[in-house]
C-alpha cells in the first residue's frame, strides 16, 4: 500500500469521528498556536527596537569620561578628543561633547520645566549630511557655529515643540531665558516625532557646551557623543577609542573608573539577546503543550488500534504486511497532528494579529515613539518549523501504537470482537 492510499485512509478515519479528531488535535493546536503567538510578538518587539534604533542611529557611540578623580591626573579635553577622532576618519564620522545643562527655560512669563537643555559643540552638526549626529535636521536658521562655542555666545537652537509653544511658530532672532540668562534663538530643528509633546524629543534647547558646563557647575566634559561611519565600523571604532582612552588615563582600572564606552549597537544586541532568551523560555513552556498534545495523540491512537483490532486482522489476512499496518497508523497519527499544526498556525497568526494591533498601539503610544510600527507577524521559518514539529510529534507518538498494531497476530485479531 502506498503513502497516498494511507493518507486518504487517514483523512477518512479523521472524518468519521470529527469531534474526537478535534479534541485529539487540541493539544497540538494550543501548543503550535502559543509558539506562533510568542514568536510573532517577539518579532514585533524586536522590530520595534530596531526601528527605534535606526531612528536614533545605530552608529552612535557614547564615551563617558569622568577622569580619575584623584586630583593628579587631568581629564581629557574636548580638543584632545577631536584630534583623535580626526586622526581616524575610516571609522569615525563625528564627535560632540554632550553636557546636560539641567532645566529652567522661560519665555516671558511662561516656564518650560520639562524642556531639556543640552550643551554641544558645532561638530554636532555635520554639513555634509545636513543633519546632527542625532539625525536632526534644521527647519529654520542655522546650527551652532565654531565662534558661538569658542566665544561662549548666548545663542541656542531649539526643537519644534518649543518654537510652537513659546514663540507661536516664529522663534528666529527672539530670546528665551535659560537659568536666568537670555539666549537668542539662531535655529529651529525640524519636527522629529509625529506629535509635539512636552518633555519629548522636540522639547529641547541646544547651547554651546561650555555654557552648559558653567550652568551645571562641572569642570570637564564627561560625555561625548561620537558617530561611527556605519553600523559595521562601530565595533572597530569602540576598540580604537578604548585603546586611546586607556592610553590616556594609563591606570589599569581606568575602565569603569575614569571612562566608559557604550554604543547603541551594544544596547541593541543586549536587548535582542535578552529578548531572545525570554522568547526561548516562553517557547519552551509552550512546547510542553506540544508534548502533552503528542501524548494525547498516542493515547487516542492506542484506543483506535484496540477498536480496530478486527480491521487489522482482516487487512493482515488479505496480505497486509507489518510495515503496511505500521505505515497506516503512523500516517494517521501524523495527519492528525499535521492538521492540528495547521489549525494551530492559523489560530496563532489570528491571535497574534489581534494582540499585535492591540498591544502594538499601546506600546507605541507609551513609548511616544512616533513613526514606529509594531508588526506581530511570525517568520516563515517559524511557521514551517512548527508545522514540521507537529508532524514529527504525530509520527513520533504514533509509532508506539502503530507498532502495536503491526505486531498483532492475525488469528487473534480476526477473532476479536
Amino acid at each position, binding site marked *: *500500500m*502506498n503513502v497516498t492510499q494511507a493518507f486518504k485512509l487517514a483523512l477518512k*478515519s479523521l472524518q468519521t469521528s470529527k469531534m474526537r479528531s478535534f479534541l485529539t488535535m487540541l493539544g497540538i493546536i494550543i501548543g503550535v498556536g502559543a509558539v506562533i503567538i510568542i514568536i510573532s510578538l517577539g518579532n514585533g518587539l524586536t522590530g520595534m527596537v530596531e526601528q527605534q534604533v535606526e531612528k536614533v542611529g545605530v552608529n552612535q557611540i557614547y564615551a563617558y569620561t569622568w577622569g580619575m578623580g584623584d586630583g593628579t591626573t587631568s581629564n581629557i579635553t574636548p580638543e584632545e578628543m577631536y584630534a583623535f577622532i580626526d586622526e581616524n576618519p575610516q571609522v569615525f564620522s563625528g564627535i560632540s561633547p554632550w553636557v546636560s545643562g539641567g532645566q529652567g527655560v522661560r519665555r516671558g512669563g511662561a516656564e518650560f520645566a520639562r524642556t531639556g537643555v543640552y550643551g554641544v559643540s558645532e561638530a554636532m552638526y555635520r554639513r555634509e549630511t545636513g543633519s546632527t549626529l542625532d539625525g536632526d535636521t534644521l527647519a529654520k536658521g542655522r546650527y551652532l557655529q565654531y565662534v558661538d562655542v569658542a566665544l561662549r555666545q548666548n545663542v541656542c537652537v531649539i526643537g519644534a515643540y518649543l518654537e510652537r509653544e513659546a514663540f507661536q511658530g516664529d522663534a528666529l532672532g527672539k530670546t528665551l531665558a535659560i537659568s536666568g540668562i537670555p539666549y537668542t534663538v539662531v535655529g529651529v530643528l525640524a519636527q522629529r516625532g509625529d506629535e509635539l509633546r512636552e518633555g519629548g524629543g522636540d522639547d529641547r534647547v541646544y547651547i554651546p557646551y561650555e555654557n552648559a558646563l558653567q550652568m551645571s557647575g562641572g569642570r570637564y566634559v564627561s560625555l561625548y557623543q561620537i558617530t561611527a561611519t556605519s553600523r559595521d565600523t562601530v565595533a572597530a571604532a569602540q576598540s580604537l577609542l578604548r585603546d586611546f582612552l586607556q592610553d590616556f588615563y594609563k591606570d589599569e582600572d581606568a575602565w569603569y573608573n575614569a571612562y566608559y564606552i557604550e554604543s547603541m549597537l551594544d544596547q541593541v544586541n543586549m536587548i535582542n539577546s535578552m529578548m531572545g532568551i525570554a522568547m526561548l523560555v516562553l517557547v519552551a513552556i509552550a512546547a510542553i503543550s506540544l508534548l502533552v498534545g503528542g501524548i494525547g495523540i498516542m493515547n487516542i491512537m492506542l484506543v483506535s488500534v484496540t477498536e480496530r483490532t478486527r*480491521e487489522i486482522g482482516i*487487512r493482515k*489476512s*488479505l*496480505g497486509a504486511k*507489518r510495515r503496511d499496518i505500521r505505515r497506516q497508523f503512523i500516517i494517521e497519527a501524523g495527519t492528525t497532528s499535521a492538521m492540528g499544526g495547521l489549525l494551530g498556525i492559523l489560530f496563532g497568526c489570528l491571535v497574534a494579529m489581534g494582540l499585535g494591533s492591540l498591544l502594538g498601539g499601546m506600546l507605541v503610544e507609551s513609548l511616544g515613539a512616533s513613526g514606529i510600527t509594531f508588526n506581530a507577524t511570525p517568520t516563515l521559518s517559524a511557521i514551517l518549523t512548527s508545522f514540521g514539529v507537529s508532524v514529527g510529534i504525530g509520527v513520533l507518538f504514533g509509532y508506539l501504537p502503530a507498532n502495536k498494531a503491526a505486531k498483532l497476530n492475525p488469528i487473534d485479531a480476526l477473532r476479536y470482537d
Partner: protein
Amino acid sequence: MEHLIELKDVYKIYPMGEEEVHALDGVSLAIDPGEFVAIVGQSGSGKSTAMNIIGCLDVPTSGSYHLGGVDVSTMDDDRQAEIRNKMLGFIFQQYNLIPKLTVLENVELPLLYAGVAAEERQERALRALERVGLADKRKNLPSQLSGGQQQRVSIARALAGEPSVILADEPTGALDSRTGREVLAFLKKLNREGDTVVLITHDNSIAVKADRIIRLQDGKVIYDGDAHDPRAVVQPGEGEEETP
C-alpha cells in the same frame, strides 16, 4: 503431479499450563488444483487450527506444509502475508468487510496490498464484483447490504486477487438457510469454473455439497474421501454438537 496443498505429519501443540494440547496430531492431507473439499469436524476437532495453517495464518509446531510446491511452514509473518495475498482468498463466517470502506474499496484491498496500480485495481475489483452480481452496489457501504450480499462481496474480495485456493470458513454460518444455499451454490459454480475451494464447516449438510470430505476428530484425520460415501457423514462418538 505436485499437489496444490500438501500437509505432511503436521502437529500443532499449544501449551496449557502443565499439559499440552494437540490441536493437530499428525495430520497429513493433500488437495489438488480444481478440487472442492470440505474439512469437517466438531468444535475442538482441530478444523480451525487446520484452516489457520492452510490459510498461512499460523505455522505448525512440526511437520511440513507445502502450498503450490513452496514450503510455507517456516515462513515469518511478512512472507506469510505475501503468500496469503498472492495465493489465498478468504471467506469468513462474519464476512469481515471493513465497515467504513465502500464495497469496491473492500474488494480492492488484496490488490492494494499486492501493489497493483489504482486503475488496474479498480478494474479487477469491478470484474470480481460482476462475477458475484454486485457491480451496481460498488459505491455502497457494507452496512447498506443484506447478509447474503455482504457475503458475496467478501467472495468477490477473495476472488479479486485471483488466488490459487479459496478458503471458506463456515461461510454460511451467519446466513439463513436460503441465502446459505445460494452462497454454497455460488462456491460450487466457482469450483466448476476452475477454482480450488476448501470449505471448513461443522455442518454435514453443508459439507456434502463438496466433492470430497476430510473429517477431523481430536486433531486426526478420520475420514478422507468421496463426499457421497455414507461413511463420510458418520459422526463417531456422541451426537452432533452445535458449534457457533
